[in-house]
């Protein structure tokens, strides 16, 4: 009974948290003045696009893109090979019973065994895939469209995206990716986290412009 009560309480907390964030989003949407492309001058747009290219270089680095696949499996390693041992996505991006992401990936890196970890280790949803079915990274334009499409990105606007890049635990993990099984340090993304956040801010400030094309 006790366990059940605890579970109920957990469900209540989660529900409450979701509700609060939803209210927060609504409030923010109401307060902020919607930015129109017209309001952004060409120079700012060009700067924003340059900033986006920096952001894109991070998103498509192995530490990020390995869990933003289009297939039913994550990747691993700097060569982005398919995850070993038949690890698959599962319905919620968390693997399947008996072969969950958290069967190995704990809340933090396990450097003595070389298994990376972070809170709630999981795959990005398919709506946030940044690769094609042949495991090739999508174009800058396509990734940008996916990232800015609020019907696909859990309804994040520019500031929310910035906050995500600044604070989300699994994003932060990319700059603290731990050690490989052989003891060497795992490669970090091409920018520092501060540079990544700064680039995101410039891009967001410019109105999250996306490159044209496919």
């Amino acid at each position: 009974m006790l366990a059940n009560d605890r579970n109920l309480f957990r469900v209540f907390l989660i529900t409450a948290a979701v509700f609060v964030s939803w209210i927060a989003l609504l409030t923010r949407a109401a307060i902020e003045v919607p930015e129109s492309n017209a309001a952004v001058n060409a120079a700012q747009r060009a700067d924003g696009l340059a900033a986006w290219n920096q952001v894109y270089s991070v998103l498509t680095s192995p530490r990020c893109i390995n869990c933003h696949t289009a297939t039913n499996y994550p990747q691993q390693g700097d060569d982005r090979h398919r995850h070993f041992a038949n690890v698959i996505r599962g319905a919620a991006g968390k693997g399947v019973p008996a072969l969950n992401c958290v069967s190995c990936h704990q809340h933090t890196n396990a450097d003595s065994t070389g298994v990376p970890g972070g809170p709630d280790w999981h795959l990005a949803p398919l709506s946030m895939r940044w690769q094609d079915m042949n495991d090739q990274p999508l174009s800058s334009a396509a990734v940008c469209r996916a990232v800015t499409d609020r019907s696909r990105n859990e309804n994040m606007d520019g500031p929310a995206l910035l906050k995500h890049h600044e604070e989300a635990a699994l994003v932060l993990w990319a700059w603290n990716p731990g050690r490989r099984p052989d003891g060497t340090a795992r490669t970090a993304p091409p920018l520092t986290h501060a540079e990544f956040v700064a680039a995101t801010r410039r891009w967001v400030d410019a109105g999250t412009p996306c490159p044209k094309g496919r």
Partner: protein
Amino acid sequence: MATFQLTVNGQRKEVDVDASTPLLWVLREDLKMTGTKYGCGISACGACTVHVDGVATRSCVVPVSLIGNRPIVTIEGVAQDPMGRKVQDAWVEKDVVQCGYCQSGQIMSAVALLKANPKPTDQNIEESMGGNLCRCATYVRIREAIKSASQQLT
């Protein structure tokens, strides 16, 4: 060296080990519970599978320092759970084992699967058991035993 309090199969245990030691070796060498097996050390074979807070976990890659106060169930204790006992019985009934070395891990995975999904399809079985290697390749009977245990759950 550091002291860790673990709850294994419902019993409190205290071990004094290096914090980096994988749970597998703490179970096998410090607690003398050798039913959990070393097969690869990189979580590629599943022979070391135990349940940590109900989640099938590859104990060979999880340092003991990351367990915290989550309860651990191993093959030695899984029969305390009616589901665990049913799966073990199905394994014996279907005469699954050959060398038997991987079967602790297979059974721990099967129990985790059936707890989450009492009526698994062939595809569910392939996916959930997909990380447990059996070098004898007793997979046909593993599948039969899981289905047999599943049928007895109704």
